[in-house]
Every structure is written in C-alpha cells, then in structure tokens.
C-alpha cells in the first residue's frame, strides 16, 4: 500500500518525457491558440472598455467627453457607492466563513460510513445546479410576509419571531447571505469531500490505533492534508462573494432603499437604469481592483499556509 502511494505521488514525473523535464514543463506555445482567443474575446475588449471609465458616456450618445479621473473622484462623494463597497466586503466575508464552515461539516458528515451517504451527497449538492435566479425567486416567496417561513413560525407558536425578512434593512443583507450559503454550501462540500477522500484510510487507522481523539485527528491530520481544498474553496467563495449580483438583484433589487446594494448591482443600475455608463465602468474597474487585491493577498497567505502544512 505504501509502495502504491509512492507510485501515485511520483508516477507522473517519472512518466513524463525527458525533454519536458529538461525544459521544466510543456512548451509554452501549446497555450498559444487559447491565449490568442482569450486575448481576442476577453483581454482586448476589457482594456478598451476601461477607457470609458474616464469619459461621461451615457451608453447611447455617440458624442461624449474625456473627463479624466472625475468618475473616480465622484465615487468618493457618493454615499451609495461607499455603502455598496462596504456591503460587498461584508457579504463576501460572511459568505466565505459561513459557506465553508457548513461545507466542511457536511463533507465530514457524508464522508463517514453512514448508509445513506450517497443520497445525502446528491441532496446536499442539488441546490448548486439550480440557477441562482430561480433559487432567489424561490426564497423571495418563502421569505415574504405571508411566505412559508413566517407561516412555519406561526405553526410552531413563534409568532413573535415573524419578520419582514426582505423588507427590513437590518435583516435583508443577512437573508442574501443565507440564500447564497444555502445554495453553495454543497459546492464547498464537494471540494472538501474530494480532499477528504484523497487522505488514505491507513493514516486514520494508524492514528486511531495510537488513541488520538476526533478533534486531534482533525486538527493534525485532516486539516493539513485538506489545505489545497481549503485554498480553492476560500478563493472561490471570496471572489464569488465580491462580485455577487444575481441573488441580490432577484431577492431585493438592492433594497429596501440601498440597504443591500452591492458594487455589482450598482454597476448594473448606473449603466442601465440611469444611463451613466462611464461612471458604471469606473465602478467596475474599482471592483476588479478589489478582487485582484483580495485574491492576491489571500492566495499568498493560503499558499504559505499550504506549504507550512505539507
């Protein structure tokens, strides 16, 4: 079994043609068609688009002016924009922590030897495959004043807990987080599950024989071996959280007032409802910068962590 492990670990490097190893990987031009295509459809339009962040274009009028940094300075005075940036970061952090916490617990649960684990895996993963818009509308009905959630509270005698879940500015943001977590905890679970299943049984067995408790086993064995899965999950959920749009737009439309507006919903509203394309693209540029900084920082921290763990 140990020999088998070693083959799995080193097999790929041994099997690679000598030429590859000498040059340190496959030749770069293998990626050229993909790179050119990417440049053509994503890179060039994006870079060209950034130009509009420095104009007062309304999205329609062929005549517009170059206004330098004014869109960006306007943003500093725009209370709605700073509120939206704050909401975005809050949502992203909350989603990342809660979704991955729940995802990990679910993964540990369905990784055990319980009989119904396959059915459970399917059920827990099911929300992930539904479009966010559909789940958002579903929850919008469930959380409505006469929706299932309030009815359920009445049935169990908790009338006093009934709320206007989406109409209360203090609750609405958390309801958005709840819906996203409900939908994507299964996604985190699958990635954690893949990580857990790559941990050889023997290690657990050896630890169990040595008499280590469940918590110690998790902390000293599972956690370090799960480090790559944790990195992927945290990266994906923080980026997903920062650019959150569909669920917010369908659940609350950014309201009540601006209580749940995120940078993405503002970008949409400024561009299409208010016809302020230049300003909207400036916001999009800020969003891109935030994502780049946060994910670069996170990647650096996590990969350091991963190396330390391995």
């Amino acid at each position, binding site marked *: 079994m140990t020999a088998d492990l070693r083959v799995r670990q080193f097999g790929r490097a041994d099997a690679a043609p000598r030429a590859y190893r000498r040059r340190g990987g496959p*030749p770069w*031009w*293998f990626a*050229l*068609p993909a790179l*050119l*295509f990417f440049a*053509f459809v994503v890179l060039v339009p994006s870079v060209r688009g950034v130009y509009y962040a420095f104009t007062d274009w309304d*999205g*329609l*009028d*062929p*005549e517009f002016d170059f206004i330098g940094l004014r869109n960006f300075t306007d943003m500093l005075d725009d209370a709605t924009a700073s509120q939206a940036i704050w909401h975005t970061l809050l949502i992203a952090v909350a989603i990342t922590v809660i979704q991955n916490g729940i995802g990990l617990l679910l993964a540990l649960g369905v990784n055990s030897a319980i009989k119904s684990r396959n059915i459970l895996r399917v059920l827990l993963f099911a929300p992930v495959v539904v479009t966010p818009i559909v789940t958002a509308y579903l929850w*919008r009905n469930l*959380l*409505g*004043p*006469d929706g299932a959630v309030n009815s359920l509270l009445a049935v169990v005698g908790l009338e006093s807990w009934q709320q*206007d*879940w*989406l*109409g*209360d*500015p203090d609750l609405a943001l958390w309801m958005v987080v709840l819906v996203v977590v409900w939908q994507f905890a299964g996604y985190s679970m699958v990635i954690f599950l893949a990580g857990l299943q790559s941990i050889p049984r023997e290690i657990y067995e050896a630890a169990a024989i040595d008499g280590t408790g469940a918590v110690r086993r998790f902390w000293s064995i599972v956690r370090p071996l799960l480090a790559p899965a944790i990195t992927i999950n945290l990266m994906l959920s923080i980026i997903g959280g920062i650019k959150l749009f569909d669920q917010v737009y369908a659940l*609350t*439309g*950014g*309201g*009540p*007032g*601006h*209580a749940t507006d995120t940078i993405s919903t503002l970008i*949409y*509203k400024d*561009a*299409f*409802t*208010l*016809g302020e394309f230049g300003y909207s693209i400036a916001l999009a540029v800020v969003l891109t910068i935030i994502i780049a900084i946060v994910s670069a920082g996170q990647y650096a921290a996590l990969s350091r962590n991963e190396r330390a763990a391995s």
Partner: protein
Amino acid sequence: MKTRRFAVVVSALTALTLAAACSSGTNARSGSDGADGKTLTLASVDQGSIEDVIKAFEAANPGVKVNFTTSGADQYQAQIRTQLASGTAPDVMTVWPGNGNPGATYVLAKPGYLLDLSDQPWAAKLPEAFKTVAQYEGKTYNAVFGLNGIGAVYNDEALARSGLKAPTTWTELLAFCRDAKGKGTPAYALGIQDNWVTQLVLYALAATVVFGPDRDFNTKLASGQATFAGSAWTQAMARYQEMEKAGCFQKNPLGTSYEASQTLAATGKTLGIVQGNWIISLLKQKNPNGTFTMTALPATDDPATFLMPAAAGAGYGVNAKAKNRDLALKFVTYVMSPAGMKLFNEKQGSLPTLPGAGTTVDPGLKELTTFVEGNRTVPFMDQLWPNAKVQQSMLSGLQEVFSNQATGDEVLKDMDTEYQKGE
C-alpha cells in the same frame, strides 16, 4: 525544432481562422437581416396586448411577418440601449413619452436614434398634452396610442362585504383606513418591494395637493423658482406617511412584491389597491369573476379640487436606421389607426389618445374618463424631469422612508439635488 515551428504555424492559423469566422459572421448578419420588405422586427414592453395587435397587423398585410420580443421595462431599457448603440436595434420599438427614463423620447431622439414621424397623418391630431411628451425639439418621434391614469382601484365585492363606502375626502379616507383595518381587511395593497411601485401613491396625492393649487408647478420647478423640498410636495409626502400610520396598507409592504400586491387586491385580502388603470386587467386575470372600479385618491377635503395623474403610456418609435422603414411606418400607422388603437387599448385597459377610436372603455374606468374629458388630469410627474436620477432618488428614497432609514424631507432634498444637475 521542426515540430515547434509547425505548432507555431498551426496556432497562428487557428487564431486567424477564429478572427475570420467572427468577422464574416458580422458581415453575414448585415446582409441577410430581413431587409426584404416582408419581415418587421419589433421590441415591446406591452406584454399580453401586443401579441393580438401583431396578429391583426399580419392578417391585414398578407405575406408580412413580424419578429418580436417582449420583456419587462427594466430589462427592455437595458436591451434597447445596447442594441441602439451597437446598431442592432429592431425596426420598431417601445419608447416612453417625455424624459426621465432610459427609454424615453427625449433620451433616444437627442442622439438621433429615432425617425422623425412628424409627417405621419396621426401626428398632427395628437392632443396638445400628448404632443409635448411625444415630441423632441418640435418633431414628433413617438406614436403614443394609450392613456393611463393612477387612482384608487377597489375590489367591488370585497368593498360590499366590508360594508364600507369608498372614501370621497381626505378625512373620510383616514377613517376608511382605520375601519377597514379594524375589520381585518386593510384598505389598500402596497407592493413596494418592487421599487417603481413606491411612486404611485405619492403621484396620486401630489396631483391634487401640488398641482391642484398650481397647475404650472413643473414650469416653476424647471426655471428654478420652486423646489421639491420647499413646496407642497412635502405635504404630499407627509400624507403618504399619514396613510401608512392610519393603517391604510397591509402589513410589511416592503416585503410585498408588485405581483403579491395584485393577489391581495384581486382576492379581497385588501379592499383595493392604489395603482394605474393597467392593474384592472391584471386583477381580472387573478380573479376572472371580480369587478374593479377606479376613483381618484382623495387628497383634500374638497372633491372639486381633485386631480388625477394621467399621461400617455409607452408608445412606439421607429429606428432611424430601420432596415424596413416602409413596413415600420406601416405598423405605426396601424397602431394609430382606429382599428389598431381600439384593439390595443381594450386589451391593455388604457384609454385612446386620439378621438374616434371607438374603444369600449372598461366600466371601472368611468371616473378616469370623466377626469380626462374634464381636463382634470396632470401628467405623470417624472415625464418632465430632466434626468432619470431624480426619479431613482425618489424610488429608493421612499423605500428608505418606509424602512425608517430616511425622512420624507431628506428624500425631497435629494430629488432637488439631482434635479438641479439637469440633463
């Protein structure tokens, strides 16, 4: 080395083919985009009524095919602006009257996207009130076929069951709300989770409170002689909140969607709803046996001073670069003909903008018709505001008022700030 060069060549060729495929795709489109004089492209927000008009138009013009899409207003406005800017817009499209929204006449006509329709026979016949909002710099761009009003719409059956009478003065209105609440059926459904709905009660009140004493308020606003925060708008805003306090609306209006508010009013869970006349056909879809009556929403104690907000609804404009200009004009002419207008208005529940269309008006709209004929209407307030941000500040501001995040005065001040920024 040899293989390497070969691979580079292959990659380059792939990229070139891709680029070529994309560009030839564009060329192919412009060449065969239905410019055969037989296919009309159309984008509309008149869901549920445009379909019949198209069928009738196709029947009247054998061999003609109309390719159309319909969508909700928000989505439509985003779509049409993108299409216009990229040169892929349809021949005929929904255009709102006046200014103040992203798909409005002034907004689209100013950069030259709309065809001048001034020489069309119906253009000269439009009543003066509609001309102002269908024209930009003296030229007509919008075929407005229908007129809409805002008022209190009652579910006749629910009202009869409650034993209450529809209020005719402001004092009666507040008493009516308290009584209705006391009987367990709130007076009006309010679905302000969808933020455009927030404005309707305010408009209904402002028509009487602001424009009753001063029909020229908009001109004064435009010339800087008046402001929202320093005018009777504060009174209209206060009355909206007074209605809320008196229990006029069901619980949790902010969590109630437009759709849900229709269900409440249609099924008698509330006695009525403050909405536009278009709601009547929607209420009937949810309760086919119900009858619904619209009246002016009382805003003072003198019914003689009541005004109703009534204005041209969205009409149709022709793309200045229409591929089938003749067919597009033919379609617009049909919409504005007595037959087309009658079909459209009856299906939509609106009133015709031209006399002699022979439209059978829903009996529930009698009072609106009387107000229109008696010149006791004012246009929807936002149609003459200089930019879309004024209305947006009001819409999200009213949601904030209802969730105690802002006061009415703050909202009006924000509206002034946006108004003063101009176009």
